[in-house]
């Protein structure tokens, strides 16, 4: 499951919402009619007011600018902003086996294919080096904010230049014979906020799909010891481009 736009913040009073919405709408209409710089600014202000009325967040917040109104908030991603991905998978292993596996950072690149490596810095901090777009490397630190053995691992990013992330993995025993339910919850605030994420999705980069893929690989490794692959298998048309060793030639050698 993936949510790109902020969920409606219902803390506003009903009556003020209606007033804001109407006022905002009027400002947009008048501003567009008026035109020029003043009209444009008026329309933008109206849009901000309307957005606040409709979903409880200012317009600029949907674009990822959060610090202006949310000073002093402890979470790196303010409540309900950012893209949220929830995915769960049932794995035929005990919670403790899965927890131990995840606590060892060297295991993560085995299922998180865009991770080059991760190393422990101190008890609560680790450094993560990801393969970014165009093979660029993106480095960031993760801080453990909650760690209950066999139950929860939660983290947030610090010092990340481009993106704020926070996430958690919850482990629950599934019903008899089915192992453990692994629930991944990830929130992140990419450049451009919700609109940026939408644009990225349209142009092919699908973080939710990648996350599903990673969880699938995690399950494969924990259940079977390997990750299903066909990379490097025999295929037609390839010998025109290179010469492959054949069993016949190997046995002759």
């Amino acid at each position, binding site marked *: 499951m993936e949510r790109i736009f902020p969920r409606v913040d219902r803390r506003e009073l009903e009556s003020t919402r209606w007033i804001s919405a109407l006022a905002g709408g009027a400002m947009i209409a008048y501003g567009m009619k008026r035109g020029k710089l003043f009209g444009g600014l008026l329309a933008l202000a109206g849009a901000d007011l309307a957005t606040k009325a409709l979903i409880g967040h200012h317009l600029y917040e949907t674009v990822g600018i959060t610090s202006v109104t949310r000073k002093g908030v402890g979470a790196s991603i303010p409540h309900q902003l950012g893209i949220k991905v929830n995915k769960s998978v049932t794995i035929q292993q005990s919670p403790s086996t899965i927890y131990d596996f995840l606590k060892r950072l060297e295991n993560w690149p085995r299922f998180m294919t865009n991770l080059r490596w991760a190393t422990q810095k101190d008890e609560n901090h680790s450094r993560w080096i990801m393969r970014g777009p165009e093979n660029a490397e993106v480095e960031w630190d993760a801080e453990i904010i909650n760690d209950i053995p066999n139950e929860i691992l939660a983290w947030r990013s610090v010092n990340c230049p481009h993106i704020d992330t926070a996430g958690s993995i919850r482990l629950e025993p599934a019903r008899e014979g089915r192992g453990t339910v692994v629930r991944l919850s990830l929130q992140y605030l990419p450049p451009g906020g919700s609109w940026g994420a939408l644009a990225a999705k349209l142009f092919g980069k699908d973080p939710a799909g990648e996350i599903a893929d990673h969880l699938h690989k995690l399950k494969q490794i924990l259940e079977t010891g390997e990750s*299903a692959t066909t990379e490097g298998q025999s295929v*037609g048309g390839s010998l025109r481009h290179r010469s492959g060793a*054949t*069993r016949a030639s190997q046995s002759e050698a």
Partner: protein
Amino acid sequence: MKALCWYGTKDVRIENVPDPQILNPRDVIIRTTLTAICGSDLHIYGGFIPTMERGDILGHEFMGEVVETGHENGLRKGDRVVVPFAIACGNCWFCKNGLTSACDNSNPNAELLEIKDGASGAGLFGYSRIYGGYAGGQAEYVRVPFGDVGPLKIPEGLSDEQVLFLSDIFPTGYMAAENCNIQGGDTVAVWGCGPVGQFAIRSAWLLGAGRVIAIDKYPERLDLARKGHAETINYEETDSVIGTLKEMTGGMGPDSCIDAVGMEAHGSFLAEAYDRTKQAMMLETDRPMVLRAAIQACRKGGTVSIPGVYGGFIDKMPMGAAFGKGLTLKMGQTHVHRYLRPLLELIQQGKIDPPSIISHRMRLEDAPDAYKMFSEKDDQCIKVVLRP
């Protein structure tokens, strides 16, 4: 090595390709000694299966000799094995519960299949990217993942032809008959006298049927069905298959019906014209004429068992008839692994004669001709086996 590669609709070619390698610790490499073309391969040949890529190696019914193993897995070089067409890991909940064709872990492209079906089952040999894109068994060598789970060791005293069909069509026909929930003496109607239908007919008897009625139009296939002790109906020589079945069963209809035809069904002129047009216009992906007939013909409270492959969506499904008559519909990809040993025993006991359905024995190099012949039912073709 030589392999049969797909290059487009009705375009398959024998090519020289790199030999397979061990890619994962639980892999084994098999040197193929015998392989076959399946009716479902014809869906690929005919261009009905999406996500194929030029150069993909086809084939999912194969057996041979172990030549290389990754880790310790109970197999040794030289072991003669038959390999199930669906790849099972043996560790996931589905594998552990006998539902091996629903394996969670063997499809590297599971996300693709999840979009279409809501969940992905097992990866298959030689059956398009959406089922994993695994190189298939119409080749001199095959890489078999999870070699400790799939391959069945074959004892001495049995020929390749006797056991090859354990890879797919014998368990498929058997599971189709099993899904009918046959009570002693039941009448089972089987649409489709191709290889799967032939095994379904013979399995129905083994499971206690009192009467088996088989429907097709090709004389040689109806002949073979009669050799399997079925009564036959030629649908081109009868006014109404459903009417005939009703009369044959004293007005009640068969107790269970098996659709061993699937998505490329033929039917009455109008029905076929309707469905083929919709297929061409991409408004329908599968042609369900046989499914409709099976639902109409089945007695109230009976079972329709569907081993015939369906891939996408069908039109004009008589759901009202199925509901009104309280039918049970059972279907799906065969869980081959749980049938391997019991069916091997049946072969050893002489209770079934698999090679009797083979009509053509050819070399792997002749595979492109074999596909054409099998597709057009030329030369009374029923089942082709290929020796590399």
